[in-house]
């Protein structure tokens, strides 16, 4: 269970999060949607205990080493090989080389294992960052825009991996501004705008609430409508 209660966060004078409440049950994929600068990464950082909240409480039902984290800054060691990047974390977690090898096979990077990271494409780097986040089979996984700037094939591959993790019982908390990704992947979503949650529920539920006349869930239209309302002060 991931929980956030009445969380607010300021950076200097700027209010980045304003009374945020969230609850994610175990084994679900939760998507936090919002435009750039809405506070998505700050929420992940607070939940992953990277930064403290100014007000409110947050909790993740997992020990620190049972949590995986993938952020937009990959933090990889660029000069050393793919294999050695992952082996570092496997060793820190007390795992052997086999765990790193299996994870690399899982994300389709085994063939590239001896390449230095600086020679990888952006998509490959993202897969390596994901493999670092899952090498220890975490109970809870935080993913900050896991498919941003990726081609559709690579993004689909990562979606498959995330769905596979849910099958294994991992709770996944991801941020995205790709509405289709949220519809395809997430069991539940919340829409974040200027640090406030403006809507939440299942993707289908949210779509039906605002455009019930459409047969195919169109989360993008709902999102644009809600953020425009919020910008105008209607919500």
């Amino acid at each position, binding site marked *: 269970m991931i929980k956030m209660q009445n969380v607010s966060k300021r950076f200097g004078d700027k209010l980045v999060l304003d009374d945020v409440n969230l609850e994610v049950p175990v084994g679900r994929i939760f998507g936090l949607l919002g435009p750039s600068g809405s506070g998505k990464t700050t929420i992940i*950082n607070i939940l*992953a205990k*990277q*930064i403290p909240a100014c007000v409110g409480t947050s909790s993740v039902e997992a020990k*620190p*080493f049972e*949590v995986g*984290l993938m*952020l937009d*800054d990959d*933090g*990889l*060691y*660029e*000069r*050393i090989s793919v294999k*050695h990047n992952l082996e*570092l*974390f496997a*060793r*820190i*977690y*007390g795992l052997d080389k086999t765990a790193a090898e299996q994870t690399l096979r899982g994300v389709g990077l085994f063939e590239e294992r001896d390449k*230095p990271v600086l020679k990888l494409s952006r998509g490959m780097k993202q897969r390596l960052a994901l493999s*670092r986040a899952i090498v*220890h089979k975490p109970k809870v996984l935080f993913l900050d825009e896991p498919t941003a700037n990726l081609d559709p094939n690579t993004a689909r591959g990562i979606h498959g991996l995330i769905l596979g993790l849910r099958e294994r019982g991992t709770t996944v908390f991801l941020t995205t501004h790709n509405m289709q990704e949220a519809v395809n992947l997430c069991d539940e979503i919340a829409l974040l705008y200027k640090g406030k949650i403006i809507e939440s529920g299942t993707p289908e539920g949210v779509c039906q609430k605002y455009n019930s006349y459409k047969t195919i869930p169109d989360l993008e239209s709902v999102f644009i409508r809600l953020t425009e309302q919020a910008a105008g002060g209607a919500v």
Partner: protein
Amino acid sequence: MRIVSALFLNNFRDLLKTPTLLISLLMFPAIAVIMAMFLPVPEYGEENYLEGLTAGLLAASMFAPMFVAMGPINTASNSIAEDIEKKRLRFLIMAGVNAGHYLAAIILFVMATSIPPIIVFGLIAQLSVFGFSVFFGVMLVSTLAATVLGAMVGILSKSLQQAGSISIMAMMFFGFIPMFVPMMDIDALSNIAQFLFTYQLREVMFYELVDDVNLLRAIGIILANFAVFIALFAYVYRKRGLKGKLSEE
């Protein structure tokens, strides 16, 4: 221990792919070896003649202090500043690495990479067994002191570039002053140099040839430098810390 050894191994792998750091560690012993073959030594009857002085000792006395002032400071500050700049610390902390693990791995790594050059300096200096033992001991303490100084620079820096700028000032101060003192007869410079660990390293190397070298005083000054660096590091660490870097990102 498992975490420290994993980080140590990773630092070592990264070093092998970082030519600038490798050069800063290998350059001085290499130059000292070459100079030991070609450096002219004043002979009996010539000005500055010193009985027992060899070209190797002269070369080692010039380059060992420069190595200590540059190699460890550069390596420690670079490693930490790069981890901060590339935002790697948050992933390490998330995986269970604490500041103690991280700093222990950096210090062990710098010490391990500095020991071969120290042995090279000791060998070309052709010291006695006692002289070599004292030299090796004070070089280890000095390398540790310089590593602590480098770690402090790394923590204070927000980027590799900033770490480089601060390191250069520290390296010039501790590296060049001891080298210039014997060449220039400037009292003010000599008075400052006496309190620097790098200058006292030179004194330790000449202990067996020069009567007026006070070995205990030299070792005392080196240890005092180390204590000052530890105190400064503790102050900076309490003020800035490693985890504190995360909230700035």
